[in-house]
Each structure stands twice: as C-alpha cells, then as structure tokens.
C-alpha cells in the first residue's frame, strides 16, 4: 500500500500547488482589469473624493501590491472572503445560497444522467450496430453540441408556453417567500419549477457518459475474458454486466471531474430559466467589478475542479486492482 500512499502524497502536493497558482492568477487578472469598483459610484456623484480615500483605506486598497497579495492569500486560503463591495454583506452570505441552488439542480441531474446514460451506453455498445445505438448516439451528440440555452429555450417554448405544463422562469413562484433551505426546496411549487431545467441538464450531460460507456463495452466485447465468461454459461445480461464493470473506471473518473465543474454552474441555463445560481451571480459580479465576490466565486470553482481531479485520480488508483500494487518486478 505504500505505493498508493506515495501516489496520494504526490497528488496532494500537486493539488496544493495548483490551488496557489489559481489563486494568484485570479488576483493578478482582477488587478489588471481597467477601472475600479468605485468608479461608477463616483461618476454618479454619490461619493466624494474624501470618502473614496477612506473606503480604499478600509479595504486595504492603498497598500502596496505585494502586501495586498499577501493579506489576500492569507484570508482566501482561510475561507475568509470578506465583504461584497456593492452589496455590503459578507461574500459568503451572498454566494452560499446561490451555490446551493446550483448544486441542488445539477448534482441530481448529473447523478441521474451518469446512471441512466451509462446503462444505456453499455446496452447499445453490447448490441452494436443496432438502430437504438445509432439513434442514441446521434441524439445525445446533438444535445451535447447544441448550446444549452437553445435546448432550454426550445423546452420552455414547448412545455411552458405551448403546453403550459410548467412555469417558465425562476425557482419559486413570485408569491412564495420561504425561509431557509428546507422550506425553499421541500415544496411542490419548487418541484414544479425544477422539472424543466433538471430535464435539460440531464439531456445536456448525457452524451459524454453514453459514449464513454458504449466505447468501453465495445472495446471489451471481443475480449478473451468475456469469451471465457460465455463458455462458463453466463447469460447475455451477466456477460454485459461484466463488460460494464470492466469499463466502469473511465466513467467513474469522468463523473468525478464533472462533479467538480458543476460548481461553476451552467451559466446559460441559469440565465434562460432564471435560476438564481452561482454562474449568474459570477457574471453580475464581474460586470460590477465586485472584487471580493469575484475572487471568492472563482476560488471556489477552481478549488472544486482541483479537488475533483484529485478525487478522480485517487478513485482510479483505488478501483483499478492493477494500479494499487507496486510494479517493476523482473521480466
């Protein structure tokens, strides 16, 4: 197992370095942007020069760059994101609910699609050349390559405007004013709003999993060990299950990677469905040059991707029985 530990240590170290790099890049890029968050306030005549200097000092913006960088590093790595400049409330207080909104939409969608499309992919891979195979590949590839807002708008037109089955916009009805997460999400009204964006994201993610699972099974289908399984008298379905198990690894790692990317939200989808997720929030924050908010959001997203990568690597090493023992014996 020591090989595995060493591997783990290496991956961890890489992840930490990556995080530092990401955090620094965010810092530099934001400072390079022209203008400052206060400019709009100044032009609107709401603030005097005197007040601006005070505020700048309060936010530490009058300090030399390296000092700003250091204190930025210190606080962001401790998850102290500070105050949003424009909203005058803690950044975390702004971001947390948006992040939860995004996750509650995308995580179930991703899990659903990972399970369903992988199963379908394995099935069509096994029955290679069937009509179902072609149909499913064409459909999912189409869904994958069309920008998600087009599919989204299409669904809204058909199901919300024409059939009037579901609401077109938002997460809750305007009249609802829930308190806390439980009240927000545990309601029929929410479900009603949920179903459309959920379906669109399921479809959007389906293509990759389907292809991955199908290719895995196709590759395994002619293999010698399946022939032996067949000779043993296993039924078609049992053989398919073994082929599927043998192609699980790439699917699992891909799932972990995707899970990391979900923290970025699906910006276009959130816009089309008026879903108050983190992606939309980030766009707004960038427009308004709300540094602390942007920094925190980007940091969370980068961190999620890095952690997901780490998890994917570890999963791979852990689930592939041929990786975890030490190699390098004699010929």
């Amino acid at each position: 197992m020591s090989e595995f530990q060493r591997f783990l240590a290496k991956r961890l170290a890489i992840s930490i370095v990556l995080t530092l790099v990401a955090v620094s890049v965010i810092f530099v890029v934001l400072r390079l942007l022209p203008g400052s968050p206060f400019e709009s306030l100044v032009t609107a005549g709401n603030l005097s020069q005197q007040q601006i200097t005070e505020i700048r000092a309060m936010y530490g913006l009058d300090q030399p760059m390296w000092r700003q960088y250091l204190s930025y590093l210190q606080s962001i790595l401790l998850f102290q994101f500070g105050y949003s400049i424009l909203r005058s409330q803690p950044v975390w207080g702004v971001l947390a609910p948006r992040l939860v909104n995004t996750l509650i939409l995308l995580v179930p969608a991703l899990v659903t699609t990972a399970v369903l499309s992988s199963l379908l992919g394995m099935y069509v891979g096994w029955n290679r050349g069937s009509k179902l195979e072609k149909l499913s590949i064409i459909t999912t590839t189409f869904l994958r390559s069309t920008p998600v807002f087009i599919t989204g708008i299409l669904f809204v037109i058909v199901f919300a405007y024409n059939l009037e089955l579901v609401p077109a916009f938002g997460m809750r009805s305007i009249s609802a004013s829930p308190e806390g997460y439980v009240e927000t999400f545990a309601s029929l009204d929410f479900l009603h709003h949920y179903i459309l964006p959920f379906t669109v994201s399921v479809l959007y993610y389906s293509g990759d999993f389907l292809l991955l699972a199908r290719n895995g099974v196709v590759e395994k289908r002619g293999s010698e060990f399946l022939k032996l399984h067949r000779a043993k008298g296993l039924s078609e379905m049992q053989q398919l299950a073994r082929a599927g198990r043998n192609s699980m690894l790439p699917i699992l790692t891909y799932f972990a990677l995707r899970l990391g990317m979900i923290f970025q939200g699906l910006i276009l989808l959130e816009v089309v469905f008026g879903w108050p997720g983190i992606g939309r929030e980030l766009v707004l924050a960038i427009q308004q040059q709300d540094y602390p908010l942007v920094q925190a959001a980007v940091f969370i997203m980068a961190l999620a991707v890095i952690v997901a990568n780490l998890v994917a690597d570890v999963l791979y090493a852990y689930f592939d029985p041929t990786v975890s023992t030490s190699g390098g014996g004699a010929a």
Partner: protein
Amino acid sequence: MSLLDITDLTVTYSTDSGTVHAVNDVSFSIDEGVNYGLAGESGSGKSTLAEAVLGLLPSNGSVESGSIEFQGRDLTGLSERERRDVLWEDIAYIPQSAMDSLDPVMSTGAQIRQAIQTHRNVTDDKARSRVRELFEIVGLDPDRIDDYPHEFSGGMRQRVTIAMALALEPDLIIADEPTTGLDVIVQDKIIDKILEIQDRMDSSLLLITHEIGVIAETCDELSILYGGKAMEQGSVDNVLVNPTNPYTMGLKNSFPEIEEGDQDPVSIPGSPPNLSEAPGACVFKDRCPFATEECEASHPDLVDLPNRNHRSACHHVTKAAQMRRDATDPETWGIPDSHDESDRGEVLLETDGLEKYYEQSQSLLEQLRGNDPNYVRAVDGVSLRVRRSEILGIAGESGCGKSTLGETIALLKQPTGGEFVFDGEPYEHYVDGNMREFRRKVQIIFQDPFDSLNPRQTVRQLVGEPLTIHDYRTDERERAIIETLEKVGLTPARKFLDQYPHQLSGGQRQRVAVAKALVLDPDFLICDEPASMLDVSLKVNLLNLLRELADTEDIGIVYISHDLASLVQVSDRLAIMYLGRVIEEGDVESIAAEPKHPYTTSLLAAAPEKDPTVDRDRVLLDGEPPNPVDLPSGCVFAPRCPKAEDACRENEPGLDTVRDGEHRAACYFPDGEIPADDPADDRSGSAYGNPEFSSPASGDSASD
C-alpha cells in the same frame, strides 16, 4: 457410443471481403476417456472448430452444415438456454491465452465460484471451499483465492483457468493451446497436471496445439488440420511414426529437435491457403512437393488405411513410403541444402557487467526512517557481445530477467550500472541526443502481439507508422510496406493492408509485429519471444527469416526465448540466464551437446519429444525460482539444484568457473565433468579468463 461426434462440420466467417471457409467438412469422434489432439498451422481452423463445439463463434461466424453430437445430442440445434446448461457442466474450456482470459477486475476465486454457482445451487461457503480445493489440486496456494489475475504469473493464471475447467468435473475438456506462450518448464508442469487430473476424473480431453511434441506425449488419437480440412487422422502412434500425408511429414520435419542441433529443420515453404472459396483442389497443393494434376482436380477424400486406426487425405497415399523418404530431404521442398556460415562481422553490441536494478517500493515510514530500499536485481552483471551476422540466443524460464535484459539493451529501460557500447558509441552518446538514430537502427519485437499492436489501426497504418516517425522511405511508403509484408510471409500483401489486428489469426498478428520492426531496415534486432504464439511451421519460417536476415543483411540479432529447441536451431551462440545472471555461455553446438550447468541440463530435458514411441524422463524442477530480492548466498541455483553441496552455498561461482574454449559456465560441479576439488579456488577463475569478459558474478551496488 462416443462422447463427441463431429460429422462433416463446415464453418464460415462472413467478412467485408467475402466469405472465409475456416473449417471444411471435418469429421472425427472422441470416445470417453480419450485424449484427442488437434494439430495444424496457424489459421488452419483449430480454434474455430473448438469454438463451434462450444457455441462460442463470434457473431460473423456460422456453422454452415454438419452436426456436432455430444452424448447423442446435436449441439448445433440447441437453444441459447439449453446450451448454457451444457457449457461447463458437461463441456469445459481452457482458453488459448491465459494472459487475458481472466476478468481483470474480479478476483480469481470469485471467477471460479461464479462458474460453480451458475450451474449448481450451492452456498457461498461451499463454493469457496471448493475453490480452495481446486487451487490445491492445480498446485496453487489456496490462500490466494482472493487475489486478482494480475497478481499471478502467466503460468499461474493458466493454472487458474485449469482449476476453473475442473470445477464441475465435466465429461469433456477442450483445451485450446493451454501452454502456448509459457516457458518449457512451466509448460511441462501444466501438461503433466492436466493429464494427472484428467486421469483421476476420467474425462475426455480435446487438446488443440501446434506443438506436435505435446500431442505425441499426451494424446491417444489426433487429427491434422490444414486449410480447414482434416488431412490425416488416427491413432497418434500411427500418424506420427508413419505419416502418410505430405503435410504431416512437413509438419513433423519442421518441429525442431535439440539433438539434431545444427541440421536445418525442413520447413514447409509458402503460406497457408486462401480460404475465400470452398476447396476445389487439394488445399495443400500449392506447397506440396508431390502435387500432380490429379491434385488440381479435387480435394482428396479421407480414406481408411487398411488394418489400422489411420486415415489420410491424399491422392498419392499409396506412395506414402517413398514420399516419407523424400520428405526428409530439404531439396524436396525446394530449400537449398544448407547455407554457408558467413563470417561473423565486427562487434556491434557489447555490454560489460550490465545491471538493471529496480528499487522496491517502501512505505512512507520506512522512507522517513531512511532505510535502504531493497532492489530487485532483474539484470545482474551481464556481459555480452553480439557481432554483425550473428544471432545470440538468450534462454531462461520466465522471470529470469531476459525480457528486462532485452529492454535494457534496447535502451527502453535505463541501465543502472555497467558498460554499454553499440556500434562503437557508448551509452552516453545515445542518451545525449542521438536516441532517434538508435531507435531506427535497433528494433525490438515483443512477446505479445495483442499488446504491441494498436487494435484501431490497419495493417497498412501499423507497418507504415515507423516510416512516418523516422521519415524513412516516405516517398515509396506503399512499396516499403508491401515489400516488408512479403518478407515476413504475409502474402498476398495487398489482401492484408486494410485489415485490423482482430481479423488476423494469432500467427498473422505476430508477423505484422515483425514487419513493423523490419520496415526500417535495422542493423540490430532484439526479439523477445517473437515466435511464442506461432505454430511450428510458421515458427520455422520466422527462424529461417531471421537467419537469412543475419546472413545476408549483416544484422546482429538477439533472440530471447524460453524455447530452447528453436534457440538451438537459430542461434550461433547461446547464453543461459538464471535470476538475472548468465550462468552458461558458448557456441550452440557445444551447449546442446554437452551442457555443463545443471540448470541448462534440466532446460534441455524439459523440451517435449515428437516421437510418441520414445519415453522421455520428465524433469520437473522443484519449485519456482527464489525471490530475486532475497537471493540465497552462494550459487543462486543451489535451492533447486540436484547436485548442490555445502560448498555451493558458500561462494557464488563465476561464469569462468568452468571453461572450455568459448564455452563457459558458472558451476562448481558441472555436468559431464569430474567435480573440481576445491570450489573456492575455482572462483578466481577469471584470472585466466578474458579480462574483457571478467566474471559478472558479484553485483555490488545500484549506483549509476
């Protein structure tokens, strides 16, 4: 009533380029308790026949006509469900390539348990204890049933598949090349095991192999297949002692025999028949030296020879005795009698005390404590020399480090010590920016054709790839590819250009791998078991091809194999390896005739005998080689050596301990000699040896 009755079986494959007639009108039957052999060249339809019996034909293969009756039931008419009940319960299968026949992500015990529980309603506990029992029977450690396939060596994996086949005590076991790709000693043990168990359970065995020797030793009856036709069948004693069919004669002659040493084995020139049409003429006519007009007209029927269990399909069967005499003469087959030994040229490759140690992984804690890591000494002080036009054979059982040695001299792995000179330039020269040149001049042909060919590339792309990489003959790419394919016997070359590896038989795949190496016209060729997947006749062709390349194109060749018979036949000099060291070295003739090291002697004795009337003493070396991390002190072979004495365990004998001209061996009590008085004295043998080749026996450190 016989157990299995195959009548007029015809199997075809449909492919993009037409129908392949893989098995044509084959009939034979197997009685209860009988061992039946099926022999023939690559592509002769052996595996297809087995798969037809088992109902495992791929989706493009189908049984066109004929019947397969098992215990009176026609298997071809069974429904999928009924067939599943017959499989394993009545007919079990030992697949051709144990290396990739086990499910990589399922423990070996679980795979056997699955076979049991699919057919019998037993509890997990019962099934587990049955698996332990089976492991014991096949000679595996019962505590390892939860290990995964990759944790076992090739030979052990084959034992797992055998254990699986035995699980339900079937009436018939079909073994498709159960030992191909294993080294002689393991092969010998496995065959021994199969026979022992099968004897005890009283089941029948259908043994498919291209090693006539294995059939001669184990089977009662056999059929010889060629081009999907049964050419000759009957009792092993009749068919192999007095073959009446020219194909059998050719096949038997091409099986190299160690004693015959340097006599050229007579291979059958030419390549297997085109199977795109059902045979109209004798399938063998293109390669048969006795063919006449009659042979053009029709394929001969199998006819019974009077008064014995022996059938042959040849129009000239009455002239069998005469043909038999002619067949031993190479000229009959259009092969020039013997090649003149061209002078061996300048030294191309030289190593001195070459080492390749692998650091063993350590826990974090051990590393923190700063303990010295252990080393696996895969190659431990090997000194070699290969000249142009010379073939150096390297022999040894699996795990002795021969593949690592091959990869190290190909610079695919970095040596951890010792000297290396190729074409007058040292190792550093090549590492220092001249690797590309080295990679073109030195080609390596690997063991496993499945691993080394990308399944998604066509033959054209596979063979053409090196040309692109090295920008070599790019303007006449197609011609270079076709020339090379023809050189390796894939004719007509155009037919193969657009095929993918999985559409080729095992033998054809290996030849593609050889073509890939030859297409760059290299100076030096390293072959690592290139022929282990080939049947005899193709193997002889390949060996002859290598010999020819060495003689005419001045190529130096290192040929690594566990198959001493073919090594003896192809090489000029031999080096025998054991646990990373060369323990005997010398000219082929003198090693084959007078092996000095006891290990060499046992290797030589493990090769099967093709004449069924000769009884060979099986030499079953005890145990496996010791763990290369924890080597015994003194002679590393001592734990398994029948002649070991106390003196052997004290000091390690150097390669110069025994010396007879070029022939050297590392042993205090060599075979065929009076034991030396004081072994300790002999250890300083290198004093009178060639200083360039000083004893590599003591490996010191792993410093670079």
